[in-house]
Each structure stands twice: as C-alpha cells, then as structure tokens.
C-alpha cells in the first residue's frame, strides 16, 4: 500500500483512504480542475476512475466532490432539487462512509460543497460555496458533429456555426428554440458548454455568479468550469429573446405557486395528485422547507 493511503481514518474498519480515491487520482483531478478554471468552459479530459456505482449515475460529480472535500467541509447532495431521492441519498451516504469528518446537510446555506443533478438551488450561492454538477453529456456539439477530434478543433476555434444552424432550423420548424434543458451557453465569449440538464430557469444563474461552478462527466471523462463573475450567455438570436419557464396558467395568465409553501419565484414540478388534479410544487425541497419553517415561525 502506498503510505499515504493509511492517512484516512475509516468508519467501521472499511479499507478506504479518506475520500475513497487514491492520492494520485485526486491530484490528477485537482490538476484538471485547476486548468478547467483557468480556461473557462473548456472540457479538460481526465482519467475518470471506476467508482462503486455505474457510470452515468453521477460518477463525474462524485470524483470532483471527492477531490474537493476535506474533513471541515459540509456537503449537500441533490437530485432534481431533492435531497431524498435515491441517487442523492446514496451518494451522500457514500460520502459519509468514505469522508470521515465531513458533515452532511440538507440546507443550501449551510453547505460548503453542493453536488447536484440537474438543478441549481434557488438560494443564491455564496463565494465560499462550490456547486458540482453531475454531467451526462458534456459536449453541446455532439448533436451536429459525431467526430470527437473535429469537435475539439471546433471548440478551440470557437466555430459554432453548425450549432447556430441547428437553432435556426428550430425557429423555421417550430417558431421557437425547442431546447428545454441542457441549453447551450457561451462562457466568457469563447467556449459553448452544455450546462448539464438544468432547466432554462437555472441558466441565468450561471452568469456573473458569486460561487464557482464545476462540471464533471464520468462516462465521457470531461471536467469543465464556470468561474465566479464570468459571462455565461445562453446562445440565441438578436431578434429571439432567451426565455425561461414562466409557469403561467394558460387560461388565467397567473403564475402557478407552490402548493406547499406558496412560493411564486421558484422552479415548479408539475404532477397529478391522488385525485388526478394538476398540482405544482417547488422542485428545490430545501428551499420549500425553509420557506415553510419561516411561515411557521411568523405565525
């Protein structure tokens, strides 16, 4: 065993070093993260390690988080905004098992590192927080160019003509850009990224944020970043404004509100209740709970 592997103190006698990955793997991840931050939006290739869950279930995000975490961190994991779905709960349990000292939390404001699948929390993230995205498909050019080497060259040259044509074809066929999530977003005027399957609603939060955004694709072996205070502009045409989900009722024109906490400013999940009625509820469970607590306290 490499001597550094003996440093972690493991719960239940499990034979893991701190944060599961060996130090060489973490150092490679850290080098890649560093270069990703220095070249905003560029997909840095890295040697995605085997994790104890299948690729495609968040291994890229997990490796980033494991390379970041130290014993004084507080970590939150969400899946589509919720802390208690299977993917999020199991990843959080894995961090608890392999990162002794790291505190788990459900509260957005209390977390130093937040790993997310497909949402950005409603609460504005601070400069001392890092948001780690689980990314299924890192390359926005994959829909217009199958050859990976050509895509890398196109990215380097900021040659996105064919992506614009794709958006134009959407306008011709449907009178609107039909991309609902994974909206191509230009970072610092050069690279266009796939911001992972976050809804359009979350895309503006990438622009000139206070926090650092890191993206990890485990299966596709890519890491990229949007640093704080960096331009992140969803691509669109001069005469076609980028629009986020409005949640307006088609008949009344009023915005739907969360049925639990009454929020009228959050991203809403729409579903049918037991009686078959359409209902709306905050997708960000921690935000919803926080509002409920405040409403209770105000009573």
């Amino acid at each position, binding site marked *: 065993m490499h001597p550094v592997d003996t440093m972690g103190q493991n719960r239940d006698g499990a034979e893991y070093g701190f944060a599961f990955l060996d130090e060489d793997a973490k150092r490679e991840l850290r080098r890649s993260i560093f270069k990703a*931050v220095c*070249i905003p939006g560029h997909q840095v290739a890295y040697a995605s390690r085997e994790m104890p869950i299948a690729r495609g279930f968040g291994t890229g995000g997990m490796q980033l988080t494991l390379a970041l975490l130290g014993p004084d961190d507080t970590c939150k994991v969400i899946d589509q905004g919720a802390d208690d779905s299977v993917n999020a709960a199991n990843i959080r349990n894995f961090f608890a098992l392999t990162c002794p000292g790291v505190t788990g939390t459900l509260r957005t404001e209390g977390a130093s590192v937040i790993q997310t699948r497909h949402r950005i929390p409603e609460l504005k993230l601070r400069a001392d927080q890092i948001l780690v995205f689980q990314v299924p498909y890192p390359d926005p050019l994959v829909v217009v160019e199958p050859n990976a080497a050509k895509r890398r060259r196109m990215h380097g040259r900021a040659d996105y003509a064919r992506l614009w044509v794709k958006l134009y074809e959407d306008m011709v066929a449907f009178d609107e850009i039909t991309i609902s999530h994974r909206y191509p977003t230009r970072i610092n005027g050069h690279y266009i990224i796939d911001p992972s399957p976050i809804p359009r609603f979350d895309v503006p939060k990438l622009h000139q944020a206070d926090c650092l955004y890191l993206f990890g694709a485990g299966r596709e072996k890519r890491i990229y970043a949007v*640093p704080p205070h960096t331009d992140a502009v969803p691509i669109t045409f001069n005469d076609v404004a980028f629009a986020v989900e409005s949640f307006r009722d088609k008949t009344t024109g009023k915005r739907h509100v969360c049925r639990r906490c009454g929020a009228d400013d959050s991203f809403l999940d729409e579903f049918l209740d037991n009686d078959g009625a359409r209902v709306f509820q905050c997708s960000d469970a921690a935000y919803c709970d926080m509002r409920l607590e405040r409403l209770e306290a105000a009573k």
Partner: protein
Amino acid sequence: MSVLDLPRLWRPETHQALFRRILDVAARPGQIADLSDLLDGRPAALAALATFCDNTQTLADLTGGLSASDLAFLDVGTAPVETAGFILASGAGAPAFAPRLGSLDAPEGGATIVVLVDNLTDGSTLTLTGPGIAGRTAVSPSGFAPGWLDARARWCADFPMGVDLVLADPTRVAVLPRTTRIKGA
C-alpha cells in the same frame, strides 16, 4: 492502522487544504491565499508544486532552489523548460524561455508557471479584469519584473492557448490564469 510521520507539507490532508485555497484564488484572480498555517516554514511555491505534481508530471526548476529531498518528495520528472508541464522560475528578471502553450485542441497543455516574487502586497499595482473578477481588482507583487508581463501577454495572445501563472511569495500565492487581462502601473 499505521500513520507515517511525514513532514506536514507532504501529507494528503495538507494537499487537500492547499488545493482548496489555491482553487479559491485561481477562480478569483487577484485574491491572495495565505498558506502560512500549512507550511511549517517551507516556501509557498513548493506547496503549490506539492499540490499538483507527481510522477506523471514534468517540472523545470529554473531557480535551482529545490533540494534533492524536495524533488524526491515531489516525485516529479524533470524536463527542459520548453516541454515541462510545471515551471518554477524567479520573478526577479524577465523570462528568457519559451514555455509550452498547449494546442488549440488541448489548451490545458499550456504550462503552469510558479513564479517566485518577494512580496505579493508591497509592489507596484497591477490592475486586473476578466473571468473571476467582479469589475476590476488589483494585485501588487514586488520582485516581479515588468518583462514577465510582456512575456505573458505574448504567450497568452492566442486564447485558448497560453500559460497560467501562480505568483508565490514566501507564505502566500495568487493566480493569474491566461484569461486575466493585466494593466501594469
């Protein structure tokens, strides 16, 4: 479970803490990370190298300041400055070398240059703008020859290719990624 009595700078938990502080200032050019509580008197530049180097990487030490023991702990290959992934250089004189700039396809191949400066806060002011900076900010390194700014401007002229600088005084570091625009005093 045995715990080796490694000097503090070479322990994994130190590397994790160093990385987070360096990442923090890499994401926010111009901000300065104080590493003194992690160093046990060793130089911050060595700590930056310890955070990133291992036997898959190459280093060119232009200062000649790394001891045999430091190099053994870094476990890093040596290479000519033209091909090294990491370069340790003195900020006192203008650089007279040509570092790796990466390629259009893989700009992350551009070198990371750790530049030794005298002090990060008592020199002439450099005004910084770009990603990671709200509006504008400043850093004031002393012992950082103006020739460095000219060389860096040349190396970083063709974004995305370029080099990333880690400025290190004895106990602190600041990062100047290739995207940062610098106006000298």
